[in-house]
């Protein structure tokens, strides 16, 4: 996949980090403000897709990226499942038990496990959307 012009590359260099930070903000503040793992994850994936579209990359590079993203995605989902199962091992026979202390409502570190769920679902959604994009790009690369 070929990259784009210098103007697009320079703009991407400036913007991609800010877009990624905004996505991370939406994920981390998911239990305080509107947003959460799904919305923030797609924003973070947008930063990756922007970089890939602007700079391109060789076939082998893209393939490596795809393998790494697949591993990240599956590990993130595994962690979500393990977090939801912890309640069963702690003695209370409850699926999705909020086992951490709740804290004060409205602070950044509060709400027990909910921020952790948000973060790992965000990572999972990021890599999922990025894989969807990469799979299509790689499929086209193989043709040419």
């Amino acid at each position, binding site marked *: 996949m070929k990259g784009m012009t210098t103007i697009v590359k320079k703009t991407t260099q400036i913007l991609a980090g800010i877009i990624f930070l905004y996505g991370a903000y939406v994920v981390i503040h998911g239990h305080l403000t509107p947003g959460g793992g799904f919305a923030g994850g797609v924003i973070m994936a947008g930063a990756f897709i922007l970089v890939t579209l602007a700079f391109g990359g060789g076939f082998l590079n893209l393939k490596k990226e795809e393998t790494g993203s697949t591993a990240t995605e599956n590990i993130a989902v595994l962690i979500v499942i393990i977090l939801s199962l912890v309640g069963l091992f702690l003695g209370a026979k409850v699926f999705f038990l909020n086992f951490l202390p709740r804290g004060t409502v409205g602070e950044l570190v509060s*709400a027990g496990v909910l921020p952790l769920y948000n973060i790992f679902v965000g990572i999972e959604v990021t890599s999922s959307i990025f894989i969807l994009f990469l799979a299509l790009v790689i499929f086209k690369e193989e043709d040419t």
Partner: protein
Amino acid sequence: MELALTIITGFMVIGAIYAIHAKDLLSAVIACGIVGYGLVICFLLLKAPDLAIVQIVVDTMSLIIMVTVVLNTSREEPYYGLDSRGRTLAVAALALIIALLYYFVISTGHLDAFGESHLRMSEAYMNGAAEKTGSANLVTGVVFDFRGYDTLGEATVLVTAVLGVIAILRLKGKK
């Protein structure tokens, strides 16, 4: 508010009809965008910022991917004429639409007024949810605490979909 929602919904219907009949696939994809962004404005008017954020982000991302696909493949839509089977299906679809409209008119008489719906379940969620879950955002509290099992299914569906895409678009499968 109902008037604004009606106008936006009308625009969405026009955009959807145009997307079906457009000759150029690129303009069809962009007409699909009208539907998505109209839905965003509807969600904002109905005071659902969580849904609006998800909708605007997912719509932009799918629009980018669809535009990339259209630009890299073909912009012409192949046209097939209507044969006898197609005519039968069209008549069946028309009958279904008329039946659905009939039941829609009957059922709207029994619903609560617009924006006045009070379910027992939603009141149980809203009363003291911040204390129960510790989350200031009620939506996150419901999604990950009260309905965590539901969300786990959602995340798993995404993983399964991605696995399916990788399996279909793999190297050997093309021969």
